[in-house]
């Protein structure tokens, strides 16, 4: 069975800004494939190139090198108004001098649809976001959240093949943002359109996406399902950017079937053999704070001394010193009031199940 054509393919895309004296390199050889009917997120800190990539897909910029394909068709050189791709802008960019209905119908009007057809679509779009009575209002009469939803359906109305969303939730307050996340997910499933979502908020990315592309400084760091991004970060950047992590230096001690045994001092970790390494190689291991099991110092894999203990409601964070140079952050779930966790200065035993630690590329 042949692979279905990817919705968006970015092939070795490079983007430079600026003249010959001080060019800014926004994207350095980025290759990505986005599947049809997928909720795909570009995640990264500001300046990582995610918005640039989005704008290249939309057509507001052209790649310096490389190709961008939409279901196999080349997009480079095409103007935005020639691409069946629509964008939800970060600042919504609703036309202030048009009514909501006119805003939503704008794309169809430009494509030459009849007023009757436009009216029908506008009606459908408004009911999609449950704002049926808002058609005659002006954008400045709407709240931020309402404007955001109108911006969304304005981009959906012309039935694009791919919908691009440029940090659309960043201007909303927390509660609204969480509500909108569910909304967006639902809309994507309902419409079946590929969503390409740009954000710097890892919670958003993890909770909404089918797959996430983590970017930094113009390069793709890792492209995976959220689960794998979290459990199996490829490098330090991804490990640090998503959630909390402990980075531990270790040496490959032996190879045991599908695993490496790596040692940090006297402590041994069993990690999956996801990279080619030889005995004696220095490696970095990533261990998430919640992967540790606490136990008796005598009967555990290794032990350490608690230097800090922070109560956080659902969890308690312990900072544990295991040797002169290494402190680990441990997260323990607060199970009940009677639970006795080691206090500051006390010894604590730690266990790391096999596969809880993962090998990083750098």
């Amino acid at each position: 069975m042949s692979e279905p054509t990817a919705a968006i393919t970015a092939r070795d895309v490079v983007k430079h800004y600026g003249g010959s004296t001080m060019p800014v390199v926004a994207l350095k050889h980025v290759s990505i494939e986005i599947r049809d009917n997928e909720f795909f997120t570009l995640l990264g800190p500001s300046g990582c190139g995610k918005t640039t990539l989005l704008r290249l897909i939309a057509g507001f910029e052209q790649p310096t090198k490389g190709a961008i394909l939409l279901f196999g068709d080349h997009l480079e050189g095409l103007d935005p108004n020639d691409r069946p791709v629509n964008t939800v802008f970060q600042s919504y960019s609703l036309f202030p001098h048009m009514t909501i209905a006119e805003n939503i119908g704008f794309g169809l009007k430009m494509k030459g649809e009849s007023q009757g057809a436009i009216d029908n679509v506008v009606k459908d779009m408004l009911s999609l976001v449950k704002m049926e009575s808002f058609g005659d209002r002006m954008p400045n009469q709407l709240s931020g959240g309402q404007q955001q939803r109108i911006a969304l359906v304005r981009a959906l109305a012309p039935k694009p093949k791919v919908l691009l969303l440029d940090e659309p939730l960043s201007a909303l307050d927390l509660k609204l943002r969480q509500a909108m996340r569910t909304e967006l997910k639902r809309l994507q499933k309902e419409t079946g359109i590929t969503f390409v979502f740009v954000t710097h908020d890892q919670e958003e990315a993890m909770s909404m996406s089918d797959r996430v592309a983590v970017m930094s400084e113009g390069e793709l760091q890792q492209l995976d399902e959220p689960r794998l991004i979290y459990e199996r970060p490829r490098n330090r950047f991804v490990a640090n950017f998503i959630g909390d992590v402990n980075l531990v230096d270790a040496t490959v001690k032996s190879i045991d079937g599908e695993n490496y045994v790596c040692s940090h001092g006297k402590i041994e970790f069993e990690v999956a053999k996801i990279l080619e390494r030889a005995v004696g190689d220095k490696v970095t291991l990533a261990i998430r704070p919640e992967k540790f099991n606490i136990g008796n110092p005598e009967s555990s894999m290794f032990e350490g001394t608690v230097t800090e203990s922070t109560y956080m409601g659902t969890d308690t964070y312990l900072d544990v010193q295991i040797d002169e140079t290494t402190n680990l952050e441990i997260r323990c779930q607060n199970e009940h009031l009677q639970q006795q966790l080691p206090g500051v200065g006390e010894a604590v035993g730690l266990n790391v199940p096999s596969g809880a630690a993962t090998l990083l590329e750098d």
Partner: protein
Amino acid sequence: MASNIGRASSDTNKGKIPWLKLWACIFFVYLYGPIAVLIGFSFNDNRIAQVWTEFSTKWYTKAFSNEAIQNAIINSLIVASVATVASTLFATMAALVLSKGKFRGQNISLGIISLPLLVPEIATAVATLSFFAAINLPLGLSSIIIAHIVFCIPFAFMPIRARLAGMDDTLQEAGRDLYANDIQVLWYVILPQLKPGIFAGAILAFIISIDDFIISLMVAGAGATTLPLYIYGMIRLGVSPEINAVSTVLFLISLTLVGIYWFISKQNEGTSYAH
């Protein structure tokens, strides 16, 4: 320290000088006094303009039944209207071009467009006259119109440009994203937003044209008298109550236009919505 900029709060740092308020009051009396005198005396019944006898509007009726004055007013309106339409159109086109991106010749174009603001009017006036004579252009209403268009362009240009600078760029991107071509973006997205700026520019151009004297003086042909030219002619014959009446009218026209401009400018400060 930043909170102290432009704001004088306590008495010591106000540098307050007690007679400052008095000075300011005297100043505004000085600024508006002569005009008030003019308007006041335009309602003076007396033939001798400066000696007050009683209230009367007869000079107004006399002035406006005067055919020459009627013609002058009509001429002024014709010139101002044509000059305004043309200069605003050209200024809008230029402003749209100059607002986007950088290109060679940008600064020179901007300089040329601003030139009429920098050159003394008398110089422009006589130079234009010489030029018209050299190309054998007959002097008349059309020569005035052409000369007015020249200096109305920069005046119309300024508010339009200001409005464009404050406009949200992403709206144009949104338009293009939603399948609008360049003409459609211009028509549906840019121009509707630009309207207050265009109106402000047009009003400004109209005011400047109506009020113009020196340039009109030099390039007007026989029979192409505008209102300011007519007033000048009357003044040379000495003070008379008709001048008061006509001048007051011209002043009030200018004042009304300034009022409209100010009102539109308030709108010009952005119809974008906040979120």
